[in-house]
């Protein structure tokens, strides 16, 4: 079974720093890593390959230095890697990104299954998977937390939903987006990692012409949405002491939580 895994290089947002004066994000020196969910996608793909045979192919869109996540993917057991890299791809929204990726996948052609991480930590949009599936006109299963069985006709997966899960059978080819519950990703193996750095390693770099897209269809120009502005929200703490009887202070606190912009506000 041939499996394509979509991977993305992202800034490591877990140790993000803000400029104490301006409150702006400090991008300098931000370490780049493979998007965490994508590690689980790769692990799933390599596990399936170990059972069924075939190839795992990692695909990424990004600047030249994004080759590092492909090297890492090969260290984890991918057999081939493809970097879609072109100045023209920059500034893409999810529409243009999913289009570019799907054209790259069409050029690879020979696949049964596509696996990608549920979402990327720098954007959290969770859109690329379903959009790529629609460009390619194949079935999709999102929030996958278990792969029960897979053969050339059908895959059975579990999907994590808000209040439980769903077991879904999908006709192949299919695109899965997976969440971290699915598995524990392996670390790269030194032999595979070192081989992937060698000149003869099977990593291909494709530009816009290679995958047959026009520059007006991709990147910022091909995007439907555009960033108008970015700003840093004001997180200054008020240091307010709530006063009154126990009953009063607690109800005051709950009121404030209800009005806060947190995801639990509506449940209170």
């Amino acid at each position, binding site marked *: 079974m041939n499996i394509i895994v979509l991977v993305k290089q992202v800034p490591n947002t877990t140790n993000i720093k803000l400029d104490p004066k301006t409150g702006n994000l400090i991008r300098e020196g931000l370490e780049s890593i493979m998007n965490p969910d994508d590690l689980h996608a790769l692990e799933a793909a390599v596990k399936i390959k170990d059972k069924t045979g075939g190839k795992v192919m990692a695909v990424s869109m990004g600047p030249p230095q994004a080759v590092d996540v492909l090297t890492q993917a090969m260290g984890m057991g991918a057999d081939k890697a493809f970097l879609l890299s072109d100045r023209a791809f*920059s*500034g893409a929204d999810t529409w243009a990104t999913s289009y570019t990726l799907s054209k790259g996948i069409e050029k690879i052609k020979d696949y049964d299954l596509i696996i990608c991480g549920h979402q990327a930590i720098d954007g959290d949009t969770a859109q690329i998977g379903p*959009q790529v599936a629609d460009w390619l006109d194949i079935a*999709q299963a999102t929030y996958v937390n278990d792969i029960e069985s897979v053969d050339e006709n059908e895959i059975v997966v579990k999907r994590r939903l808000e209040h439980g899960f769903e077991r879904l059978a999908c006709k192949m080819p299919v695109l899965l987006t997976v969440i971290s519950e699915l598995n524990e990703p392996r670390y790269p193996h030194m032999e595979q990692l070192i081989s992937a750095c060698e000149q003869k390693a099977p990593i291909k770099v494709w530009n816009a012409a290679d995958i047959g897209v026009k520059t007006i269809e991709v990147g910022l120009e091909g995007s*439907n949405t555009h960033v108008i502005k970015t700003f840093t929200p004001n997180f200054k703490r008020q240091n*307010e002491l709530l006063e009154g009887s126990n009953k009063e202070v607690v109800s005051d606190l709950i009121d404030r939580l209800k009005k806060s912009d947190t995801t639990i506000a509506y*449940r209170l």
Partner: protein
Amino acid sequence: MTIWIIEEKCDGCRRCIKACPYEGIKIKDGIASVTERCTSCGACIEACKKQNAIESDIEPRKIPDFSDRQGVWVFADQTDGKLARVCLELLGKAQDLAKDMGHKVSAVLLGKDVSHLIQTLHDHGAQNVYLVEDDLLKNFRTIAYTNVIEDLVLTYKPNILLMGATALGRDLAPRVSRRVGTGLTADCTQLAIDPDEKLMFQTRPAFGGNVMATIACKYASPQMATVRPGVMEAAPCKPENPTLIRHKISLKEQDIRTKILERVTQKKPGTDIIDANVIVAGGRGVNGEQGFAMLKELADILGGELACTRLIIEQGILPHDAQVGQTGKTIRPEIYIACGISGAVQHTAGMTGSRYIIAINNDPLAPIFKLANWGIVGDVHEIVPEFIKQLSCGGAS
């Protein structure tokens, strides 16, 4: 396509730097200079009208005429005949948006035997309800729902389409947006109509909430966004002439390509404190295992996890992976409730990144109050039970 600076004209005013969403321009030797992050979006050219020091060879993209696209649509997310609360919240926001645009609010309801929900949708602001019922729509399946919504959008041409960022919405919305050829902004926290161009400005967090970005979809229609539950407010209202539009579409089972084998309700397993949205943490001021049982109850009601200071680990009350601080974990939950924690740096080093910090402590001089958004001076063993009581009878819907 490139952007360049005419060095003689630039006076180093930095307006372009403020305007650039990508850090694609910076000041070098007192004048602006384009960096490799530049995506040629042209925002700086707009900002430099006074000096006209920035030029480019980009041809301005034509904005298509979308004046025939009318209406603000909300997708009515239902499972087993029960509406997700978020779609009522979206109907509330849709009323504001529709008013600012002079459009009408509609809801889109898909399923099997779901007509009992129509009235609820009308009552929350939906003037029109588009209803599509079919055996194949009984349970949500991506391709079936996408095909139906595509047909509705192409037939009735809405201007805006909103969906809840539920598991269902986040599965469906991207696929619909691709299908109908438009952009999509996920997990918006604010939606507003720009008075000049009548565009919907969609604001969402990026980089884990450290930066907010405002996004617009100028070149495609409809303008699509998803919104997290709890962010908007429902606003009951009785529209005039509520209308039901039944839409028919022929679906074929073999086109849908997925089959639901089973659906199971199950409590989510406990999460690592690093991933939890809400943390209830206890320290020296919490009375042993009993005290922590009480904190656990509060954490469960809030859908959060328990954490603690090092002392509690040493007393063997909680396992090692619950420790927050210099020698424990560093966490950034949305809400951090510090109970009986004084606020020494050994602990607070691991939690100052929290979005909201609530402190409960009987010592008014405890340093934790200097970090907290809201502080309550009092006995944890009285305040927390009161908190639990009010939360449980206040009634989660």
